[in-house]
């Protein structure tokens, strides 16, 4: 094989007393997709930050294109051919695509931007990627998948030899993911090296050539993708064997606790009817943007919608408002943990008790001791790792933040939990704990709605499944009535019904 594009040798990095990286090696060859796996906090991000010049390494050598490489700033890394595409895109929403692609290195003559030049160059880049994005379109009008292409195009516009992708498929539907893989393969053909960071194990085999697994800042393994199985990867990531990621459960369903009939959003984009029993975990599958979040928001009263019926434990709740639904025992876990789910600047205790002022106050006066007691008991119940209930949310890891958000619903004694992407962006270990918790809650008799874009999770957890496609919710399927192919057929609108006999289930 050719010379490696990138060689990182014996990289050490410590923040104060915490060792973030100890002696990590990484080699990436041209045209190779190198997967970087590991739990949150394993050191993936730090390693990439060292490479792109966000943090300097304490020790170690980096060779890029055969020469010693050191970037003091991400811009310097980019100019030298290393581009990083973050999970949260860095795009100027109000500018057109071509301006975003050439942001910071505009094609200009005497300080005047040559728009035609830029447009043509942008079009040419998209041709290389075998995709059609209009160079003149405003980025704010583009979907997530297309925005990502703009990011990739920006990397190519400076002729990047190495592209780092951080969780590129987290916000993509399966179809869009396939499209991204085609783009990645096109990049491989052009000898671009890719470092691919992801939580989605089943993608690895499809796209990866090599895989490096990090754990606690150390390189655990670096092998060709063909030599490992998903189970082995998980084992290496968490350092122990996770026998059952999804806890086994056999719920004998109770009475119906939550009914929605003929929900209709004002512009008619979302239409749904839904029923949940006690002890039942109901999954809602669908492509990103199908309207699942909109449905949950509407029936929680956060967005306006019409409904024929909204019943919680036999009580009519119309029109819905967050306050009213919570009083009746419904809780919503937001998909947007940072933007909506939690107040980042406030303490764990304040976040947990924000929805239940009546439990921590008398005549409008707060009792801090009661707030602390309540928060402490919830921290214990859901297993949050924190120094105290006074700790601020933004000092917690993603998994622990999500547990705080979940604990808030429990603190409010929710009988019906509406969970929107409960495991998005958290590591495998935390995922397993959340699965366990949700299953236990169902066992206690709660009804659970779980919206997820991650099919294995839905099939692992749920008793029954709805599929949403273009704002329309399907009928309810028992989990043994439908398989992954059936869900995709429904979600993409190929089929209107997708029952399979249990024996055919894949």
């Amino acid at each position, binding site marked *: 094989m050719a010379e490696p594009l990138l060689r990182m040798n014996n990289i050490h990095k410590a923040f104060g007393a915490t060792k973030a990286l100890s002696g990590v090696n990484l080699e990436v060859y041209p045209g190779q997709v190198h997967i970087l796996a590991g739990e949150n906090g394993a050191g993936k991000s730090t390693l990439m930050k060292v490479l792109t010049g966000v943090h300097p390494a304490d020790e170690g050598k980096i060779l890029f294109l055969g020469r010693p490489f050191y970037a003091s700033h991400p811009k310097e890394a980019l100019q030298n051919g290393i581009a990083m595409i973050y999970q949260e895109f860095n795009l100027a929403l109000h500018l057109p695509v071509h301006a975003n692609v050439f942001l910071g290195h505009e094609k200009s003559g005497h300080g005047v931007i040559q728009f035609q030049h830029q447009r043509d160059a942008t079009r040419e880049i998209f041709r290389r990627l075998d995709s059609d994005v209009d160079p003149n379109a405003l980025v704010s009008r583009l979907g997530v998948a297309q925005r990502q292409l703009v990011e990739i195009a920006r990397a190519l516009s400076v002729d990047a030899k190495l592209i780092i992708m951080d969780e590129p498929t987290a916000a993509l539907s399966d179809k869009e993911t396939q499209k991204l893989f085609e783009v990645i393969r096109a990049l491989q053909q052009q000898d671009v090296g890719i470092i691919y960071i992801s939580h989605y194990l089943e993608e690895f085999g499809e796209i990866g050539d090599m895989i490096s697994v990090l754990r606690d800042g150390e390189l655990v393994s670096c092998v060709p993708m063909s030599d490992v199985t998903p189970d082995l990867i998980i084992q290496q990531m968490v350092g122990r064997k996770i026998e059952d990621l999804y806890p086994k459960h056999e719920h004998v369903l109770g009475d119906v606790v939550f009914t929605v009939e003929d929900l209709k959003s004002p512009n008619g984009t979302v239409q749904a009817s839904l029923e949940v029993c006690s002890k039942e975990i109901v999954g809602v599958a669908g492509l990103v943007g199908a309207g699942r979040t909109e449905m949950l928001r509407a029936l929680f009263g*956060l967005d306006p919608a019409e409904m024929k019926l909204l019943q919680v434990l036999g009580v009519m709740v119309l029109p819905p*408002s*967050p*306050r009213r639904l*919570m009083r009746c025992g419904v809780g*919503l876990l*937001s998909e*947007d943990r940072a*933007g*909506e*789910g*939690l*107040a*980042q*600047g*406030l303490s764990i205790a*304040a*976040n947990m008790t*924000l*929805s239940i*002022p009546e439990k921590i*106050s008398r005549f*409008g*006066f*707060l009792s801090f001791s009661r707030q602390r007691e309540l928060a402490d008991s919830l921290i214990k119940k859901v297993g949050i790792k924190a120094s105290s209930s006074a700790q601020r949310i*933004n*000092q917690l890891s993603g998994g622990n933040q999500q547990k705080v958000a979940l604990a*808030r619903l429990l603190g409010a004694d929710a009988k019906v939990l509406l969970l929107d992407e409960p495991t998005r962006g958290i590591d495998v270990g935390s995922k397993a704990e959340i699965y366990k918790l949700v299953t236990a809650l169902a066992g206690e008799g709660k009804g659970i709605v779980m919206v997820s874009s991650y099919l294995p999770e839905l099939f692992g957890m749920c008793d029954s499944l709805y599929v949403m496609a273009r704002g329309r919710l399907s009928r309810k399927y028992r989990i043994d009535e439908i398989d992954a192919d059936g869900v995709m057929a429904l979600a993409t609108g190929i089929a209107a019904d997708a029952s399979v006999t249990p024996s055919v289930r894949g």
Partner: protein
Amino acid sequence: MDQKSWWDHAVSRMLWLSGKVGPLFALFVVLLIFGSISPDKFFSTLNLGNVVGQTAVIAIAAIGMTFVIISAGIDLSVGSLVALAGVYATMTMVKVAEMMPGHILIPIAAGIVVGLLTGALCGLINGAVITMGRLPPFIVTLGMLEILRGTALQSADGLPITRLPRGFSQIGNAMWTIPVGNTVIYLPYALLILIPLAILAWFLLKYTVFGMQVYAVGSNEQTARLCGVNVTKVKILVYIIGGITAGLAGILHASRLNSGQPSEAVGMELDIIAAVVVGGGSLMGGEGSILGSVVGALIIRFLRNGCVVVGVSPFVQRIIIGLIIIAAVFIDQLRRRKLSEE
């Protein structure tokens, strides 16, 4: 421990300390600087008493502004509202005194009630337009700044309202004189308004459900809504509180001038906002404290007074105050960055 880490350690200790007692420390420094330049004049008990009296107007309005700023709002109309409330309060006093010759207390009381109601009503308008109209607070209150100023000038015909009931000017100007040894301490009557108000506001913010909700709305409005907090109600209440305190400040200001001046207090909103910000309030919402804002008001007043006492030109005075505002926020940002790193 090597040189650099020792320095880092010292800096982070200082920043930690500044987060705990920052505004108080800054006030101490201000007092120390001017006190050392001109101890006799600056530290004369009469001067100190005077400054505290002057501070009361801004501090009272800053207390209300603290609620607004914690909720991630802003109220630019308070300066105009101080003038308008003063004008309406004094107009009422004059009218009622005409109707009831010989009475002093009733006209003054009526004037105070009208002044407070003016503040509450204007706050309600601010809050209602911002929440129902879904408009940015900056724009709404900027518009109200003009509207209220115009209303004040129009109502008073552009002229000061004078011939107020005797005794009204006592509220803002009079001081108790307490002999201590061979000197005398001057305590302005205005403290009787400021201190209870500050304690009440502090309690409201810290120990009530409403206070918690103000912080929550400012920290993340979406989260508050998700948690069933009536965001509209909280915001309207916050602007009403801001309006009432501005009304109170207006009455006190009119008392100090012994007249209702429709063209007074121009730009005072900036001093008030500066007091909150210097006192640790964040314009992004979610942070701020009553004690901080009151101390912030004292810092700004003592700076102005100190400059006058030691003979700094009023022009340079403004430059210094501008620098202090930026420095205060800069230190606060440093502290926060350090905090999020740890």
